[in-house]
């Protein structure tokens, strides 16, 4: 920035403007003034909250008064590590997040491939809009739709019975949670996958064909590796959003706990904020590892 200011002097405005703006002459001042309000907000509220969350995780509560005791202790973390229940909950949540991510990647890839490489310009625009709507449409509404579909006298069982199949009791189970998560986060996977596929230059595919690669070979050796960063970018969202969600398991789950549920009830029912904070560190740690892995796959360049 200093180099730019010194090495490449900007043309002075005409004589009519005797006093060019001070921000034009000192660019960093302008940046600093513009950046101050949002950065202050983020540092003073968001980062401060996250830092406090970390500190709170090492506090405890007095079991009799449920007051927070501000003394340094590893009790919460020990409780999480030593009790098999919590380890099982963490394992189940990570498994669910992985399952949802894989499901969405499998559903999204052919769809995104069609959008980016096969469809005409007009169809492409229409499909993009068709993905945008569910991307933004109310989360609760889309979850509720599945309660209506999966419940005992819902659309699913009605359809199954009308073709002579036995009713499925999917609602209020882990399977329902898996279906709903996969449904709700699907657009988050389609859009980055589409963006990555669209950026692949035609010339690369032509080159593959010229060199004698069959269609599937081209998809496997050229398209898939180039689309991987996009899928990895989408997976950040499907994985992270599943990891911390408690609404879906509460409303359509079969009573099994996920990390989000336990954090929620630690605050809502037990009023044990320090334990909730310690447990919230688990998804943060998992996401940190996940982001490092995604960065290796080039997900950040694909965002």
């Amino acid at each position: 920035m200093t180099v730019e200011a010194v090495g490449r002097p900007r043309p002075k405005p005409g004589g009519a403007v005797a006093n060019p703006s001070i921000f034009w002459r000192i660019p960093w001042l302008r940046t600093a003034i513009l950046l101050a309000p949002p950065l202050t907000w983020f540092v003073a509220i968001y980062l401060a909250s996250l830092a406090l969350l970390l500190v709170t995780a090492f506090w405890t509560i007095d079991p009799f008064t449920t007051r927070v005791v501000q003394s340094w202790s590893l009790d919460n973390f020990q409780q999480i590590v030593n009790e098999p229940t919590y380890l099982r909950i963490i394992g189940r949540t990570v498994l669910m997040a992985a399952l949802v991510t894989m499901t969405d990647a499998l559903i999204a890839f052919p769809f995104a491939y069609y959008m980016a490489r096969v469809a005409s310009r007009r169809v492409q625009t229409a499909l993009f809009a068709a993905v945008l709507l569910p991307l933004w449409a109310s989360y609760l509404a889309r979850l509720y739709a599945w309660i209506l579909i999966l419940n005992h006298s819902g659309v699913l069982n009605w359809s199954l019975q009308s073709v002579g199949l036995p009713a499925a009791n999917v609602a209020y189970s882990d399977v329902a949670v898996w279906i709903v998560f996969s449904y709700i986060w699907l657009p988050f996977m389609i859009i980055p996958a589409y963006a990555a596929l669209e950026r692949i230059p035609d010339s690369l595919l032509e080159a593959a064909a010229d060199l004698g690669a069959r269609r599937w070979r081209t998809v496997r050796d050229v398209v898939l590796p180039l689309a991987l960063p996009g899928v990895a970018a989408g997976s950040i969202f499907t994985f992270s959003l599943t990891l911390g969600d408690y609404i879906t398991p509460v409303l359509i789950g079969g009573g099994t706990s996920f990390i989000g549920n336990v954090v929620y009830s630690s605050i809502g029912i037990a009023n044990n904020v320090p334990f909730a904070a310690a447990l919230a560190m688990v998804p943060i740690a998992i996401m940190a590892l996940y982001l490092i892995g995604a960065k290796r796959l080039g997900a950040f360049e694909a965002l």
Partner: protein
Amino acid sequence: MTDRWSRIALRLWVALVLLFLFIPMAIIFLYAFNSSKIEAWPIEGLTLTWIKMTINDAEVVSALRLSVEVALTTTALALVLGSCAAFAIRRTAFFGRDAVNFLFVLPLALPGIITGVALHSFFGYGGILLSIWTIIVGHTTFCIVVVYNNVLARLRRTQGSLLEAAMDLGASGFQTFRDITLPLISTSIIAGAMLAFALSFDEIIVTTFTAGAQNTLPIWIFAQIRNGQRLPEVNVVVSFVILVTIIPVLIAARLTGGSGTSRVPAAR
């Protein structure tokens, strides 16, 4: 590149995915007019009873009012802060720019429950009572990035030469901003505002941890579904919420040609 059979297979797949995406949303609208009190398929008949009942439900109306107040205030704050951030990041390369960029995106990349619990303990520690203002603070934190992404994407596509031409012709910094920059980016600002409104209006996870005794519309819906109460009214409210979240997106997509409407952040 793609032969006939794989084309057909792909088309079929796309059609199935579209059905998968849209049938559930369509079903909700049908249930809003369901004449039966029981949530069973197929619906018995059509009626406007539940819609009338919902409109006259004082609880729903007050929850709606709170949601609108929160979403409007959040949008205003996010507009100012997000635009400032986009202008700052766009203008000058500075040390730590990537870190700042990452920081703004973080509330959307981390699970919402973390933002929620963090703010909950922050307010608790600071002795701040939970109120409409704590909800607004929470919502603004993750809505800033929506405005920021939109405005930044537009600024990156705006040619610097236009600004330089204005300056060369003797326009002051303010004149250039008013007559050149603002018209160029105005639709992206409006689109950002629309999306921030939609995001705030529907948010539940952060809201649960930052709301005191107040009910926003999503919190009301959550409570009713959980307790299995007043489900005919829930059908109506949920249909309404879908519309409120979809219409701003359609407008935003119009204004930006679809480019600035991705909830997945930081389109280059």
